[in-house]
Every structure is written in C-alpha cells, then in structure tokens.
C-alpha cells in the first residue's frame, strides 16, 4: 500500500482529448482565419504532438501513495508539487465520471479534507473499481488509534473483519435507503433550480437565435408565425419549453439516483445520466440534515433532502443532496432513517410571535407599496396608463399572503439531540442541526429588532452553510435556546 501508484494509463487518451476540446475555439478561429489566406503553414500538425506529449508528461509525473496514515499526491516536472492529507481528516470522497471517462471505464477521484479548494486532492483518473477500492480504504479505516474518535456505529470494529470487507466490498453490505422513482420527474419544473436551469437554457437559445435572426429567412418566418399566434398559445409554448428544459436538467442530474448506507454508517449517493457522480460521506462528519420545502414543491406535496456536513465544497453543487424532489412521505421516512429523531424531523415547531409576524408582513408589503407609489407618480407626471394600477389589489393580496406564509414558516424547537430551525416561504427550509455540531453562537439585533425586543439567534458550525439562523425570535427565548443547547457555555455568563 505504501508504494507509489500512478493514474490509469488510459488517461493517456483522455488528457490530449480534453486539452483539444478546451482549445477547440482557438483551433476553429485559426482555421477560419486561414481559410481565406494562402498561408499553408500547418500549425495544428505541430500543436498535436505537443498536446499529446503534454498529456504523457502529466501522466508520468503524477503519482500517489498512502503511507504513515497520510495520502500523498505528487505532480509536476519542473515545479514539483506534493500534496498530503491525513487520512483521519478525509471527510468526503467523490467519484465523477464524465461521458469519455465512462467509455474508458474510468472515474475521477476527489478527496476533500476541509471546506476549501486547497484542502482537496484530485486523482484524474483511476479505473472505476480502483477508485472505489481507494474510497473504501480512505473512508472505512476505522482504527480508533488513527482517528482518535469513537467508531461511527457505536460498537468497536474488528479490524481483520474490516480488512476483508474492504477487499471484497460485497454489495450485500449496503443498505439501499432510496432509489429514484421515475415518476418523481414530474416535480422537476416546480423547483427554483429547475426553473433557473430552464431560464439559462432559454437565454442561451434566444441569444443564439438573435445572432442568426438577421440572416436566416427560415427563422424570420418562424418568428412571424409565432407572433401571429394568440397570446395564450405563446404562453403555453413557453410553459412547455420551460418544463421540458427543467425535466431534462433533472434527468441529466438525477437519473439512477441511489442512496445507500454501508454497515459502518457511510452514506453513498450515485446519480447522473451522462456524467455519473458518486459521493461518499463519512458519518462522523455529518452534522445534520436540511429538508427543503420550496413553495412549488410544497403545493405539490413534495420535499427534497440535503445533508449538512463538513468537507463538501460549494462549487461541487449538488453533492450534498440525499434525495431529489420526491413525495413528502418518502423524504420524511428517509430523514427519520438518517436522523432518528421524530420530533426534530416532523414535530411541531415553536412560533416566533407577533413581532416576527409584523416584520414579515411589513417586509412583504412595503416594496409593493413603493412600486405602487412610483406608478402613481408616473401617472401624474408622465401620464402613464392607469391600467397598470389595476393590478394593485392582486399585488397587495399576494404580498400579504407571502408575508403571512413567511411568518407561518418561521419556527424552531430544541430536542434532546438537535436544534431545529425553519424559515422562508418561496425557499422554505427546515434545518435539523446536531447540538454537538454547534461551535458557537451569535445573537444579532438591529435597531428595529431591539425596539421590538426580538433577535436573530445564529448557531455557527463547521458544516454546510457555516451558520444556521433562528430569525426574529423574542430575545429571552433566544437566550433560553442558547442556554438549553449549551448550558456549560451560558452558565458562565449568567
């Protein structure tokens, strides 16, 4: 185990192709620029061997090994770079396989030991099986001498038995907690992520069309055809387009989603249609769960689930998902499985009182009032049509409803093992945070919060978003929560 190992030799194929793809725009520009001139120097003939040599060099100079409870990664020829990470600091291991990786049976291994880009080792790439074995080595070592932590499952683990488990890694060991039901795809257009993807896709399309717009007769004709349609047909067309984009994004990301747990308690997710991604999360790093309940999903009786853990990078969006949008019953059952604390997962929350309600409604209504006032000014000064003011009642009712829903969403509760907080309406989320994972507190009060005798209680943690807030809670309640969760801390300053 301690000798140096290399990346898989098949990467000799992948590196040059990746470099070529990255350089493709430049190559195209060169080709187009030259098509008119008679200069026939064949640049690409020189460039190609250079690119291939670069790939070979990358392969030859990259090696890794596991020695003395550390993993070492060495890169570079002239500028030699060695990255080391203590095995007991490894928090998550990600296996990503893009389409070309999958054709060759490879996977990129990303080992993360902290929250930042620097705390990361990337092995691009290993054979899929080799990657999984490495992951098992990294995450399943449970020697208490090394980790100085209790075994995740509570009982001490026989190392001999463990070693044999690592070698064979039998699938029967794994308990499947969740499998994607294809019918859940119907929830795709209801989430903001789905809508954002759709919007990005639409923007991309329209930009492409507007460039072609002047030249292509066909598109001009189509545009005229679209313009001649009734407005509701347009609306339906846009809806259909948005839905299909959101659905395809969902399918690309979550196809074949599977969440499993092995007998040591590690969680594994596997997902993706073209690019597959496997994430493994060390149970000792999990600090809680986050149940997302955005308005769209709530109306459809659906939820989604994320894990709150240390060591997941923000830019690796979505590797903290434990469940894609799915029926509430399935998500609740899964949450109970991961956090066996019914009161925290689905119990009633304590409301935050009249001051919080007043603030929610004010914040929702005031922007609308400002817009309406501007409309009135615009009507008197520039003579805008009064028709715009016709929407005022609808706007006001919606904003009041939004404010009230935001207040209803606010809530918190302290259970023997967790702090639960919930807020938001369009993006409502219920966070169940391990009390042990809280590493500090903030009590924030703005000028107006002080006048209303309320505060925002912030629990800081090393996991997930780094802080989770209990918003606009009465000040004495904030200190009561603090004292209940961290009695030894509050006791010193009583």
């Amino acid at each position, binding site marked *: 185990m301690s000798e140096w190992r290399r990346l898989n030799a098949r990467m000799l194929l992948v590196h040059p192709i990746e470099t070529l793809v990255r350089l493709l725009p430049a190559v195209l520009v060169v080709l187009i620029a030259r098509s008119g001139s008679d200069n026939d120097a064949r640049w690409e003939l020189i460039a190609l061997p250079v690119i291939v040599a670069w790939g070979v060099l990358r392969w030859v100079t990259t090696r890794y090994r596991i020695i003395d409870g550390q993993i070492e990664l060495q890169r570079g020829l002239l500028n030699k770079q060695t990255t080391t990470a203590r095995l007991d600091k490894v928090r998550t291991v990600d296996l990503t396989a893009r389409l070309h990786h999958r054709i060759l049976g490879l996977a990129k291994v990303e080992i993360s030991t902290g929250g930042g880009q620097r705390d990361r080792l990337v092995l691009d790439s290993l054979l899929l099986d080799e990657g999984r074995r490495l992951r098992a080595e990294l995450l399943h070592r449970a020697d208490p001498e090394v980790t100085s932590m209790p075994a995740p499952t509570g009982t001490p683990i026989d190392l001999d038995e463990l070693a044999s488990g690592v070698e064979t890694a039998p699938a029967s060991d794994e308990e499947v907690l969740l499998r994607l039901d294809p019918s859940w795809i119907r929830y795709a257009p209801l989430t903001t992520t789905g809508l954002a993807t759709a919007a990005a896709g639409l923007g991309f399309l329209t930009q492409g069309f507007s460039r072609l717009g002047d030249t292509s007769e066909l598109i001009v004709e189509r545009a005229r055809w679209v313009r001649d349609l009734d407005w509701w047909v347009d609306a339906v067309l846009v809806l259909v387009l948005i839905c299909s984009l959101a659905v395809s994004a969902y399918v690309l990301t979550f196809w074949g989603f599977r969440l499993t747990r092995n007998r040591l308690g590690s969680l594994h997710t596997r997902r993706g249609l073209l690019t597959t991604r496997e994430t493994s999360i060390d149970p000792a790093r999990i600090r809680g769960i986050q149940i997302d309940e955005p308005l769209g999903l709530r109306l459809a009786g659906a939820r989604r689930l994320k894990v709150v853990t*240390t060591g997941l990078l923000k830019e690796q969006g979505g590797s903290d998902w434990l469940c894609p949008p799915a029926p509430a019953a399935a998500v609740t059952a899964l949450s109970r499985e991961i956090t066996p604390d019914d009161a925290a997962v689905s119990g009633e929350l304590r409301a935050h009182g009249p001051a919080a309600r007043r603030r929610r409604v004010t914040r929702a209504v005031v922007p609308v009032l400002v817009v309406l006032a501007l409309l009135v000014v615009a009507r008197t000064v520039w003579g805008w049509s009064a028709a715009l003011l016709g929407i005022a009642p609808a706007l006001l009712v919606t904003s009041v409803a939004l404010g009230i829903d935001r207040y209803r969403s606010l809530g918190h509760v302290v259970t023997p093992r967790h702090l639960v907080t919930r807020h938001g309406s369009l993006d409502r989320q219920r966070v169940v945070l391990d009390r042990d994972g809280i*590493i500090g507190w903030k009590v924030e009060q703005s000028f107006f919060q002080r006048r209303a005798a309320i505060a925002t209680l*912030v629990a*800081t943690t090393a996991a997930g978003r*780094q802080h989770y807030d209990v918003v606009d809670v009465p000040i004495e309640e904030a200190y009561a929560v603090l004292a209940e969760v961290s009695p030894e801390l509050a006791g010193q300053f009583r």
Partner: protein
Amino acid sequence: MREPAHRVSTRAIGMWTVEALTVVLVLLGGQVIWWFVDDRPSRSAHWIVGAVWLVLSIAYVVVMPRWRFRVHRWEATEHAIYTQSGWLRQERRIAPLSRVQTIDLERGPVSQLFTLASVTVTTASAAGPLTIHGLDLPVARELVEALTTSAVRERGDAT
C-alpha cells in the same frame, strides 16, 4: 444572559473618531472633485449636498465612537470567550475555547497610533470569528496569552 464584564480601552473612542473622520473626508474629496468638474453656473446643488454632508458627518463622527464604546464589551473565562459589539446593529458572540482554531493580534495604522490592538479568535466555522477591537496593547497581549493556554488545555476536534 448578562453583559460581558470588561469594557474596551477609552482610547478606542479616539481610534473610532479618526476612522470615522477618514470615511467622512473621503466623501468630502468626492464633493470637491464634483465642484471642479461641474460646469453649470448654478452652485445650489453643491451647497445642499454639502450641508447634508456636514450634518450627517458631524453626527457620525461625534455619536458613533461614543455609542460604540458604550456597547463594546468582552469577557474571557477558562472555557469560553464572550463579546458584544456594534452600535446601530449590535451583536453578542460566544464560543467555547475547545472549538478555537487561531488567535490573532492585529494592529492597524490607526490602532498603533493609539497603542491599541484587536484580538480575533477564529473557530472552524467561517461564520464565527470573534473580534475585540480597541484593547489596550498590554491587555491584548495578556488576553492572547491566556486564550492560547486555555485553548491548548481544552483541545477538541474543533469541528
């Protein structure tokens, strides 16, 4: 919960005043440039903005440092650190020393002028550094010493 026990140094008022003056003078600089760049003969807009600047600046320079001084407090025990800061927006922060990662003593140009220092205590959470501004330099040194000893004794996983 009661307030933290100790106030910061009274010289902190001077430090905050100098900092406030800097901000206010930068704004004045912007106005002077505007005065020379503007070609219109009417100067009334300049006088109005200038008057608003004068009133707000005086209020800021006079009120903010004193208000801050009344709010800013700190306390460190063997097991925890507790701070209170802000003026319009106030906050209290509390962290157990077992979760402390680094302890920094910082002296900016203005705080050197007043022989003051600030002490920053970071935890494993990106959201939770505690900073105490405007400490007397010897007090700050002593605090760093005490915190370091206690933090070592309280060793934990920090996450």
